[in-house]
Structure formats: structure tokens, C-alpha cells
């Protein structure tokens, strides 16, 4: 920790696909605190074409709000801090401003190697261009067709990388070698397109030498541990690490202006997803919490968590509430999106508005209609990403309750659509509707949009990262209590007896289908006795079983979500809108 001494003040920045934020961290009363934040448009695209321009602009905003000099007359960041107090001792940056890495996934068997390879692609900002399974289980014609499609796409629009796998360690070499030869033929024929395609081989260990002789000449071959060393074992770590490296090198590192930004930084630039994952792991380890975070960005939506010791991540590189709206619209459909609105919105009008946001993703909603439409899209982006996460890692072994989420202690929301919602209740409702947590958990927001940067900061200054995270990193919305089960509309689903720390008590009965908010201010705690009706489970794995627990307060208090799991919206348009209006009213909206 010696190197930390005197390492302050510090700037931390996140360059998102549309917004760049820079924050100043310094000692206040012996403790590291977040002092100021500057925010501007990300300047990767024309006419700026220089990521550092936006960072410099955000730093200038901090200069103005704090009356500190951080940039030289030439616009260079002053590092280290000078005796006159100008400058900072370091800058730490996270970014997801680069476009996704285009990857072709090539393996042998759909349900084995290909599935594991696809899981590995969830680790960072990746667009899967082709999926090839030599034996797709359906027909050899289908397999042959997917190989030909991959070859054709490689010739026309070469991927940035091929993720190749197949076979268990010590198994037959020939099948994976055959498919490697198909890849080699395609890459060799497309080599006139300039540069070599990266190939990450994560298959049968015994095939490495042969793979090297087939692909070593026509690609930048990287060999990592087999993603499926045995039929029952999955080992994604090495493949994920290599894909993350590739994204950083081939995409983040090639963003215009990256060189200048890198020259200012004190640590390697991390992706926003990596920064957030580090924070979650830290929280889980330190407080023994099961956590789940959803980051809804303009281009991508990221779900990450640590549940019962298993950490997982799903970066949905195309689903977002700006650039990524088209994908949400294509996959979810307009009807599913509009079902979350408490008012009628003409489908054409909604479609036009969504496309306009996609064309100008940096814009912010000015009217309530626009806010609610964007939040509806956020719900669907989260739902789509959670579906993928559930199919790949977010179903802890032993939990076989369909779409239900494993119980977690903390749900963390981030992204401007949540953190900048005009009312905190709107953010809470998006999280409850889209994630549908079960049992008792804390809802919080990364309201300062700083957590990924703190994850990156932890590598050079863990004390500062921990102190800012603790003091400024979260905004607690409150405690959500969500019994699972189905009841009769209006019948009591849950009885609560709340004992506040001043000794006062409050008894509440919440009917099935209702959302109810019980006041409990930020910083306060209360003891809550929960008595569910016989057909409801409060997260104990047994219907009707009650419990007493201590809960935290927050901006909203205790939110009892007795709408049942899975949440089913009324099919009738008018009834559904009335219900949503009722839920919103309960949250003060």
C-alpha cells in the first residue's frame, strides 16, 4: 500500500458509446470522496473522431466547477499534481465506446463445445457473426450449410476473430482438425482483404500441434485451454480472457484518440463491463452478498452477478436504449415494448420515436411519454439479456424454478435510463418489472455512474476505490420484498409487521396483485416480520413459511411487490394500463 501514499487527487473516467463522464476523487477529512463530475458526448465519431476530446471537455467542466486547474494551456492533463495544487496524480479509464468485436464461433457439437464457446463470447462486447456446429444434431446438411455460410461471410466480410473449439482433451483429433481446415481454407482465400484474422483455439488439447500447422500460417493463432476439457466440465476462463484481450487490442485500442488518452492514464484501460464485474466481486467477497447488476447502456446491456459463489456475466452487445434499440425492437417486438406504458401510444408514433432515438442516441427524453417509452425499452433490453444469462449461467445448480431468478441480496441498476430517471420510483419499477426478483433484496442505483471506474481504480488505489464506493457509489432505493406464487386478485398475499428502530410498529396486509410502499428512510433499519399466505414463498423455498428479517431503508423505503412471479400483465389493454397506473401511483409517480 506504500505506493498509494500521496496518490491523490485522481480522475476516473468512463467513455461510453454516447456519453463520457469524468469524476474527480480527492481526500476530504482523511477520506476519499467523489468531488465533482463532468459529462459530455463521447467524441469517437465524426466530426470529432477523437475520444480524448470528450474526456478533455469533461475535465474542463470539473475545472470550472471546482476552480482547480487540471489541464495545461495546451490542453494536456497535468500529471502529477503540482505544488500549486494544479493537476492530478493519475487518471483511470474504463470504456465501451468501441464497436463490438465480430466473432465467428466454430465448434463440433451444438450442445457441448459450441454452447461453451458461445457462453465465452458473453464476457465482453462481442457480436457473433456466425455459429458453426460441425454436428448440429439436426442434420449433416444443416451443419454443412452453416460451414458454407461461415466461409461465404468470411470471404465477404471477414470477422475480427474466429473462436474455434471442439473435442474433449485426449479425444479424437480428426473432427476438430477437419473443421479447422475449413476455417483455414476460408481465411486463406480471404487473406487479400488485408491483415490476418485472429483465431482463438479453445478445443482438444491434443490437437494443438496440428491446429498450429493448419492455421498458423493464415491467421494470428492463439491457443488457450479447452472450454470443454471433459464432457462434464466447462472451463471458460482462458477463452474469456483471450477474447477480452482481443476486444481491448483490436477494438478499444483502435478507437481514434486512444493513444492520447492512454498516455494520460495510470493503469491499463479496462472495459466498462470488466470494471463493473470487479466491483461486484469485491462487494460479494467483502460483505458475503449475492449480487446482481444490470447496466443498460445506449449500445449494450450488461448483466453481471455473483450468486452463491458463482460469478457470471452476459454482455448483450447489441441491445440498448440508444444505438441498441433496433435489436430490442427486432427481438422483443413493438407490442411487448408498448405493454409497459400506462397510456395508449399509436404504434406508428412509437415506432417513429424509437427510430429517432436510435438515429440520435445521445438525446434525452424531455416529456413524460418519452421517459416512459425509453424505460419500457430498458425493461425489454434487461429481459432479453437476462434470458441469455439464465440459459448460460444465472441458474445456480439446484434451482429449477423455470424463469425465476435465484434469490440475491443486492440488485444494482446502472445506465442513464435508470440513474437519470426523473423519479427514483421509475427506476425501481423498471428493475422490479424486468428482473422480477424473488424474496428479500436491496435495490440500489449507481447514481453517480462511477462503479466501473472504481473497479478499474482498485487496481492502482484500492483504498480510494473502496472508500468512494462505500460513501458515494450507491444510492439505496430501498428493500424489495417479493413473495412468489399465484393467488386470487385482492386476497392477502403477505402480512408484514414492521418494527422501526424507535420502537414504533406498523402492520400491513398486501393483497395479491398490488405493489405497496412502506416508508423507511435512508440510513434507517427496521425489523420486519413476514407472514405469507399459504400459496406464497418469501424466498425460503417453502410456501406459507414466515420469517423475521432486518431490512434497510432507502429513497423509497420498503417496496412490497405482491404481483406474483412470474409477473403477468393483464391482457386487456385498458385493465393493464389501469394496473400500471396504480403501481406507479403507489411508487409516487
Amino acid at each position: 500500500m506504500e505506493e498509494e501514499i500521496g496518490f491523490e487527487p485522481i480522475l476516473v473516467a468512463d467513455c461510453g458509446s454516447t456519453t463520457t463522464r469524468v469524476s474527480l476523487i480527492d481526500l476530504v477529512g482523511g477520506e476519499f470522496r467523489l468531488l465533482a463530475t463532468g459529462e459530455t458526448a463521447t467524441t469517437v465519431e465524426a466530426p470529432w473522431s477523437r475520444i480524448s476530446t470528450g474526456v478533455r471537455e469533461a475535465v474542463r467542466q470539473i475545472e470550472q466547477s471546482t476552480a482547480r486547474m487540471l489541464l495545461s494551456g495546451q490542453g494536456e492533463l497535468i500529471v502529477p499534481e503540482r505544488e500549486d495544487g494544479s493537476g492530478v496524480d493519475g487518471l483511470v479509464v474504463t470504456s465501451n465506446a468501441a464497436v463490438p468485436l465480430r466473432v465467428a464461433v466454430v465448434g463440433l457439437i451444438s450442445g457441448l463445445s459450441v454452447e461453451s464457446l458461445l457462453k465465452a463470447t458473453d464476457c465482453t462486447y462481442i457480436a457473433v457473426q456466425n455459429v458453426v456446429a460441425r454436428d448440429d444434431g439436426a442434420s449433416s446438411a444443416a451443419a454443412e450449410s452453416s460451414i458454407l455460410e461461415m466461409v461465404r461471410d468470411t470471404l465477404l466480410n471477414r470477422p475480427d476473430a474466429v473462436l474455434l473449439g471442439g473435442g474433449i482433451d485426449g479425444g479424437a483429433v480428426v473432427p476438430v482438425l477437419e473443421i479447422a481446415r475449413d476455417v483455414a481454407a476460408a481465411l486463406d482465400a480471404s487473406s487479400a482483404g488485408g491483415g490476418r484474422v485472429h483465431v482463438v483455439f479453445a478445443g482438444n488439447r491434443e490437437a494443438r500441434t496440428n491446429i498450429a500447422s493448419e492455421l498458423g500460417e493464415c491467421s494470428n493463432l492463439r491457443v488457450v485451454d479447452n472450454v470443454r476439457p471433459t464432457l462434464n466440465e466447462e472451463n471458460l476462463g482462458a477463452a474469456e480472457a483471450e477474447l477480452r484481450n482481443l476486444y481491448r487490442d483490436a477494438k478499444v485500442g483502435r478507437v481514434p484518440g486512444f493513444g492520447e488518452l492512454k498516455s494520460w492514464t495510470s493503469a491499463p484501460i479496462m472495459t466498462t463491463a470488466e470494471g463493473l464485474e470487479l466491483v461486484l466481486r469485491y462487494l460479494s467477497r467483502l460483505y458475503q452478498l449475492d449480487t446482481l447488476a444490470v447496466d443498460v447502456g445506449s449500445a449494450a446491456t450488461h448483466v453481471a452477478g455473483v450468486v452463491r459463489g458463482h460469478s457470471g456475466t452476459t454482455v448483450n452487445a447489441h441491445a440498448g436504449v440508444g444505438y441498441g434499440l433496433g435489436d430490442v425492437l427486432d427481438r422483443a417486438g413493438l407490442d411487448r415494448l408498448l405493454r409497459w406504458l400506462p397510456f395508449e401510444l399509436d404504434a406508428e408514433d412509437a415506432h417513429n420515436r424509437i427510430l429517432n432515438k436510435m438515429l440520435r442516441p445521445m438525446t434525452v427524453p424531455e416529456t413524460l411519454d418519452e421517459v416512459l417509452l425509453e424505460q419500457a425499452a430498458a425493461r425489454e433490453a434487461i429481459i432479453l439479456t437476462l434470458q441469455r444469462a439464465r440459459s448460460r449461467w444465472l441458474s445456480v445448480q439446484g434451482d429449477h424454478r423455470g424463469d425465476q431468478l435465484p434469490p440475491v441480496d443486492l440488485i444494482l441498476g446502472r445506465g442513464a435510463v435508470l440513474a437519470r430517471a426523473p423519479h427514483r420510483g421509475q427506476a425501481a419499477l423498471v428493475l422490479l418489472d424486468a428482473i422480477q426478483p424473488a424474496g428479500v433484496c436491496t435495490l440500489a442505483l449507481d447514481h453517480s455512474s462511477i462503479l466501473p471506474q472504481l473497479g478499474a481504480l482498485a487496481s492502482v488505489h484500492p483504498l480510494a476505490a473502496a472508500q468512494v464506493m462505500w460513501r458515494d457509489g450507491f444510492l439505496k432505493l430501498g428493500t424489495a420484498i417479493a413473495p412468489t406464487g399465484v393467488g386470487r386478485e385482492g386476497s392477502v398475499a403477505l402480512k408484514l409487521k414492521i418494527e422501526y428502530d424507535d420502537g414504533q410498529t406498523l402492520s400491513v396486509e398486501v393483497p395479491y396483485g398490488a405493489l405497496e410502499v412502506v416508508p423507511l428512510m435512508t440510513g434507517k433499519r427496521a425489523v420486519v416480520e413476514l407472514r405469507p399466505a399459504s400459496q406464497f414463498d418469501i424466498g425460503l423455498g417453502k410456501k406459507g413459511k414466515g420469517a423475521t428479517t432486518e431490512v434497510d431503508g432507502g429513497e423509497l423505503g420498503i417496496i412490497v411487490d405482491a404481483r406474483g412471479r412470474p409477473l403477468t400483465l393483464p391482457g386487456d389493454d385498458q385493465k393493464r394500463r389501469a394496473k400500471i397506473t396504480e403501481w406507479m401511483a403507489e411508487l409516487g409517480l
Partner: protein
Amino acid sequence: MPYHPFVTRVVPNMVMRRERMLPIRGEVMVGTGSRVRPTEIIARAVTSGETHLLKVARALALDGTDLSPYLRVSVGDSIEEGDVLAAGSGASRLFGRSYRSPVTGLVVGISSGRVLIQAGSSPLELAAHYRGAVINVMAGLGAIIEVKGALIQAIWGSDKEGFGVLKLMIDDPAEPLYPEAIDMSCRGTVLVVPSSVDDEILHRAEEVEVQGMVVGSLDARLMSVVESLQYPVVVTEGMGLLPISAPVFDLLTAYEGQEASIRGAMEGRGGVARPEIVIYASYAGGDAELEARPEFLLEAGSRVRIVRGPHMGETGTVTGFPSYPGTLLSGGKAEGVEMRLASGEEVFVAQANVELFG
């Protein structure tokens, strides 16, 4: 406070450079310094239909994947169905055995015991699309053309290109266009429709063979119709019912009757291409502006248009920057600008929702 806003270039006289690239490797037919016309073919390539991955080594039961001793064709060869691709000869252990191509096509790759053939090839020609001078040639790939003219950037376009004389269809952006106004006098022109269009107008324009269409806005449900048309359509404002904004309309009006290149292609995130109209006209107002500028800042006096919210589509001038975030109609807060609309009304708009004309 300065801010880097979204910028739309609407410039009467500019020098710009445009890259013209083949999608696949081919032949470039112009040299550095050549003057080119928009319709002139500057590069050619051969595109293919189906791809065939022939596992020749396996079919010939070779021990390895090295086909070289047996090959009868090379990469780049055109072959007919039935032509021998590989065969043994003399004392070869493959004596008498051969592998014949199941298709007619072009050999595009030989590697790892496989022969890749692209069948059904057809020539692809790349037009200059712009009038200007070639300043750089990338062998086998394309060229960079330096162009002088007016530039108007649009926000959406269909992925096509056209060239023709600009023809203004209505004088007032508030007025609707009726399909019958599109007659044979429109043939070969680039139509400017300041308001929005409907299905009938789009098809009528196709019937008379226009070269392109510039519209203020488009209803989202017409996007698939537009994409199926032969000519490019570019949208200057956005989706819905928005007239072309005054600065864009004024420039188009000033250059009516001049030749223009219109391109609808757009490259999203991280890309540099926006749909655009380049107009070739002499300009007496001063030297041509360079496309790259050191700064585009949103400042008091900046000419902007509002791209979201209740005033979407309206234009005006920035009059001030409040020190603190303002409250929006939604109840949310945002850094904003004060601006005077063309109508004279003073409004507060979120900073992120104004777009600078530059």
C-alpha cells in the same frame, strides 16, 4: 459553457474527400490526378453467387492436405463444370484418379486440402459517384476523390446512390406534395420534397425514373418500401412528420437546377458515413471550407435545430447557457441551453437535444 454537440454539416461551399471502395478486391481503372464524372466507372470486380468448399484431399484419399503435386488449377482460374481440379500423373499413386469440379466458377482459394470455388460470378462496377479529382488510388480496392461543392448531411437514407439535377417540388415545406405533381419532367432528377411522403409518391417517382429523393421526414412504416426502391431516398430531419428545416431548405432552394450526387448509405457506430447530398455549383461567397475543422462548439449565437421533445424539428439560435441544470417537462433535470426559435419564442432545451448546423 462549451459543449460538443451532434453536428450536421450544411455548407454552401466545401472541399471534401470521399473514399470509393470495392466490397471485394478487383481492378481500379483510374490513376491519381484523373478527373472523374459521377457516372464514370472507376473500378471493377467479379462477385460470386454460391460458394463451394470442395474437400479434394479427402475425396482423393490423400494422407495429408497438401494438394500441390496434384493440382491442375490455380487461384484466380475460371473453370467449367467437369474440369479436373486435381489428378495424379506418371508414377503417382493417384494414377488414373482425378477430382472434377461439380460447378462452373472461379477458384478463389486452395488450402488445407480444400478448393474454394465461387460459382455464378458476375461483374461488379463501381462508379465514381462524385465529380472531382482522384487524389489517391488503393490498388485493387478503390480511390479517394476530392470533391468541391455544397454539402448537406442527412440523418437516414436507403443504401443506394444517385446523380441528377436538383428539382424542388414545393416552395413551402408546410405544403403537402400530391402524387400527380410528379410527371415526366422529373425523370433523371433528384427530387426535393420538403415535407414527408407517402407510398403513392414514392412509387410514382419510381415510375418516372427519378435519380433520388430528398425528404424532410419519413414514416417508419415506409422504410421497407423505400429500401425496395431503385433510387436512393435521404431523410434530413428524422422519422415521422417533419418538414425540412429552414437552413437545409434554403440551401437546396438556392441550388435548385444544379447537379447533385445523393447517397443514402449510412455507417452506424464508429463509422464516418452519413447520408448526404453533394451539390456541384459555383459559389461566389468566398473560399471553399475544408471538411475537417478543429472545433465545433455549441456557443451563444450557434444556429441549431431541436432533435427531440415538444419542439422537435424547430430551428433557432442559442442565446444562453444556464449555470444550473434546468427542469424538463418530464420532471427530470438536464444541462440545457436557452434558445430563440425561428418563431421568436424563447425556450429551454436539454443540451443533448440540440444539433449544431456547421
